[in-house]
Structure formats: C-alpha cells, structure tokens
C-alpha cells in the first residue's frame, strides 16, 4: 500500500492539532513558540503534499518561502523572548498580562 494524499493530510492535521494544543495549554513562552513552529510545519506538509499530488511545484516553492520567512521570524521572536526574559526575569505567559485593564 502506498501513502495517498489523505494520509499526508491526516499527518498534517494531526501535527496542526498537536501544535494548537501546545499553544493553548503550555505556559512557557519557549515551548509555546515551538508549538507554533509545529503548526507552521503542519501547514508546510499539507502544501507539499498537495503540490506533489497535483504534479506542480507552486506549493513547494511556497514552502521554501515559508521556511525562509519562518527562519527570520524565529530569529526575531527568539530575540524578543530573550529581551523579555532579561527585563522580566520570566518567560511564563501568565506574567505577561500588562495589557489587561
């Protein structure tokens, strides 16, 4: 049995849900960040799968762009995180509620 489109998509959905669950439940910003990346890559997987099964390369090109931008985003995000940690001595989300009235 060969893996069909639906199998790839199932994995993608699974990965996306795992990432979402991580984002919603974890308290540490770093872990939150990793979960976010997981969701991003679930989307990448879906794109590549579609691209492969439609015999086109549009989706794969798109994925390259996403990976590039995500790399830059991670750099910025981690820098923010470090700066935040230096200032607050904490990387827990519940400590970051200054916007609340």
């Amino acid at each position, binding site marked *: 049995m060969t893996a069909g489109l639906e199998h790839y998509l199932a994995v993608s959905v699974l990965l996306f849900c795992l990432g979402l669950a991580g*984002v*919603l*439940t974890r308290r540490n910003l770093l872990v939150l960040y990793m979960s976010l990346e997981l969701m991003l890559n679930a989307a990448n997987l879906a794109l590549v799968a579609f691209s492969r099964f439609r015999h086109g390369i549009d989706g794969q090109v798109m994925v390259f762009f996403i990976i590039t931008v995500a790399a830059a985003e991670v750099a910025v995000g981690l820098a923010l995180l470090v700066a935040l940690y230096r200032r607050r001595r904490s990387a827990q989300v519940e400590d970051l*509620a*200054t916007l*609340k009235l």
Partner: protein
Amino acid sequence: MSPQIQLVWLILLLPLAAAAGITLATLRHGRLSAALSIGAVIAAFAASLLLFVGHVQGRVAVPWISLTDGTTAFLVDLGLRLDPLSALMLLVVTGVAGVIHLYSYGYMADDPGMGRYYAGLSFFTFAMTGIVLADNFLVLFIFWELVGAASYLLIGFWHQRPAAADAGKKAFLVNRIGDFGFLLGLLLLWATLGSLDYAVLESKLDANPHALGPLATAVGLLVFCGAVGKSAQFPLHVWLPDAMEGPTPVSALIHAATMVAAGVYLLCRVFFLLALPDSQALPVIAWTGAITALIAALMAIQQNDLKRILAYSTLSQLGYMVMAVGLSGAQTGPDAGFHHLITHAFFKALLFLGAGSVIHALHHEQDIWHMGALGRRLPLTFVTFLAGTLALCGLPPFSGFFSKDAILALAQHQSPPLFALGVGVAFLTAFYMARLVFVAFLGPARTQQAREAHESPLIMTVPLALLTVPTVLSGFWGLGQACAHALGPSGPAPTGIWATLAEPFTHAPLAAAGGLLAALGGMAVAGFLYHGQLTDPLPSRLGALARILANRFYIDEFYAWLIRVTQEPLARCADWIDRWIIAGLMVRGTHGTFEIAGRLLRLAQTGNLQTYALWFAAGALLLLAGLLAR
C-alpha cells in the same frame, strides 16, 4: 432730503457710545461716567432740537436683512424715520431724559454703583430713541425688547434687596406676556401683507383697506397686546407699581415719562392699522384704557407709599391715553392721547423727581404718614411738586388741563359712558393727589425726620425748576396743534393767552366744565378729609372697601393663586417627566445598558495570551465549519 437728517444717527448712537464707554472703561469712576452719560444725552437733545426747529424730515436706512426664495422676498432695513410725530416724541424723550440725567447726579452721588447706573440710563436712552425713530416693526420690536432689558437692569439696580430683584423679574416676565402677543401680531401682519415697514403697510392698506379681511381685528388687538404690556394696562398692569423699587430718577424716566408711554406712542404710530374699517379693535382699546384708568385711580386713593401713589397715578393716566387712542376715529387721528402723553411726561417726571427730592431729604422714608409739613422745610420742592399736582389734576392754566380736556371732549363726543368714567377718574385723580399733598407737605410734621428735613442740593432742584416750565406753560405753546399736525389734519391754533384758555370752554363746554368741577371737587373732598389729620380717616369710614383698595383689588393675589393652580402643577408634571422619563429612563437607561454590556464584555479581556489564542482558534473552527457546511 437735507443732509441734516444724518443727525438722527448721532442721536441714536451717542447714548449707546456713552453706555459702551462707561461699561468698558469708566465703570469704577462714578463722576466721570456721569459726565459722559450727561454729555451724550444733552448732545442728543441739542440735535433733536435742531431737527425739530429746522422741520427736518426724512428717512435714513442701511440695508440689513434680505432673504428671498424666488417668489417672495423678506426685506428689512435698519431704517430710522423722522416725521413730525417722531420729531416731537424725540424732543420729549431726550429733553426729559436730559433733565433726569442731571438730577441723578445729585440723587445717586453717594451710591458706589454710579457708573453702572449711568451706563443703564444711557443704554435706556439709546433703546428709547430707537423705538421713537424705528421705521418698521422689526426694528421697533428689537428696541422694544432692549428697553425692557434696560428697565429690568435699572429696576433691579439695588439687586442686594430681594424686593428690587423680584420687581425687576416681575416687570420682565409680565412684559413677556404682552410681547408674545405683539410678536404674534407682527407674524400675522407679515403673513398677510408681506411687509413690516410702516410706509409699505400704510400704502397697501390705503390702496385696499380690506386687505386684512377678517384678520383686521386680530392684528390690531395683538399689536395692542404689546402696548398693554409696556404701558401697563389692565390686566398686565401689576408690574408697574412694583417697579418703584428702582432708584427714583429711574421711576421718573422709565416708569412714568418715557418707556411706559412707548405703548401709547406705538398705538399712535400704527393708528392706521387700528382704524381699519373692518377692525373692531378700537372699542376694546378704549375700554381697556378706561378700566385701567378707573381701577388704578381707585387703588391710588388708599396707598401710603409716596412713590406707589404716583405709580398708580401713572397707570391711571396711561389708561386715559389709551382710552383716548381707542376713542379716536380714522378721521380725527389719536392726537388727544398723544398730547396727554407729552404733557404727562413733563408733569409726571416732575412729580417723581419731587418725590425723589423728598425721599432724599428724609433719608429714604417713603411713607407719607411719616412726613408732614414738608412745604416749609422743602420750599422749592413743594412749589414744583404743587405745580405738577395741579397739572395732573387738570386745572387751568397748567398743561395737564388742556390735554385732559382734549380727551374728555373726545369722550363726550364719542361715548357718553366713557365720558362719565373719565370725569369720575378726574375726580379720583384730584382726590388722591390732594391727599398726598395735604398729608406729606401740609399738616403737622409726624416724625423727627420730617421736622429736620433739608432742601436738596441745587443739582436736584434745578431740574425740578426746568421741568416746571413746560408743566406750567406748554399749554400755550400750541402743543395740541403740534400733536394734531403730527397725526393728521389740524385746525388753526388760537392766538393769545386768553383765547387759548377760553378755547376748551367754547369748543366743548360740558367736557371742560365737567373736568374742572371734578378736579376741584376731588381736591375739596380731600382737603375736608385729610387737612391736619394724623392718621388716615378713610379705613374706619369705608371699612372693607378701603381694605380692598389698599390691597389693589387682590389682583396680585389672584395672579399668584392662578399661577399656583395652573402653572405649578404643569411645572411639577414637566419636572416628573424630565426626572423620570427623560433623565431616568432615556438618558440613564441608555447609559446603564451600555455600562452593563461593557462590564460583561470586559470579562472576555483576561489579558492572557492563551485565552485570546483559544478565541482565535474557536473562531477559525467556526469559520471552517461554516465553509464545510455550505
């Protein structure tokens, strides 16, 4: 048109400039303010005299309002009109105002508010000349209201006294009722004839006397409403006696000589509107005036306050004038009323200034039963006051005789019941004025103050003397003919003193003799009752009737009751609606709904990143579900 006509701008604007100058610059310097104000009014008088002597006539105007919607146009000029009527009135207004300005310099010398006082007086003079000169109803109405405002400011001049503040308010509010009717009349005129300009209206009504149709009476009576308020006719007369709370020179100028006469002047000015063939307004006007004259004279005989007696006498004389206007026909013109207006301005201003002199000498004592024997202590005041009294009673050769006789002759000719009423009022007038003189100036001195009174300073007695001149002599100046000339066709003036004196007796012997006998009879009765008395003998003789008269027929009480049963429940109802429906339900209801909604929505704002993420994910899911379900 002669270039001298431009002088009317000067007459109008000089007092305004004085008022503005005083308010902006010299309010704290009483004497300087007085000089400014007196200078302005004297200059205005000189200019008026120049215009009057030169027989200058004409109209000046600056375009003001011009509205048009294609078919009809609303054009109003800020126009001033100088004709024999306004020239004569202008002379009287600025003349009397000038004398009273001078007098006030003595009367108000010790008052710290002298600057404010003179600013008010100048402002009043400006507004009053505006009324006299206005050449259309809209301009007139503006000055009409300005005069009311000036009156309010000056009645309440001593605003620390609650009575004065209340009196100012009362005058303003009562006038509002009359002015409301007046305004309705103007709107009706504008709606039917499309203009508010006297000349345009007159030419339209000349061309077609039935142009107003069935509305003629309504227009006439509504315009008369304004005069009822301003000239204090029954039933809106209640403000005038209270207005005596103001300084006495103000009472003399505004509430005796000029402003209250503005209503009568208005009636003379727009007489063409009242005397239309379709209009039934004139009889109503005549009877209103007669009723006012009678009840005011009755009230006057039981008053004990010097100024209030004069105030009721003013009411009564205004009633006379209004009655005379109402009795005039389209052919004759209302010259008898206007003649009386002018002579009344002289002698009533004189009487009030004399009263002011007495009050000044007695350190603000106004009860005549606390006076007595003042004739010896204040000789000049007494002589001038006596001249004014005799003129008011209508004895020849004083000016009041001629004007009152003209009214009585007119009444005899037009309406016997009103003639009888007029003679009765003449009797009452003589009675209460003689009572005043016998009690205050003759008889025994009743208080220490009265025994130690001193004559007022020259600055106050000279104006008295100045006013005495026209009071005594103006009957011989052809004033009656001047008035007739100003208001319609006039006959030749009798020449010579004796011919002038005899003219009333040959012209209408019954009226002249009736008026004279009534005046002499009233004085005799008053002399019999009051000479040498220490207290008023009338209350014990008349009993309840005297009480009713002293309480002014309880009209004020009746109005208070009327307001309590009509206006107060209405106000309570409005208050309830405002408090509970508008403020409670609508304003606070709206505010409350949003407040509660806001408080609930705030619960969603936890400040926690993951809550927002959850909402976001839920939203995305919802969208997805929606898309898939389609």
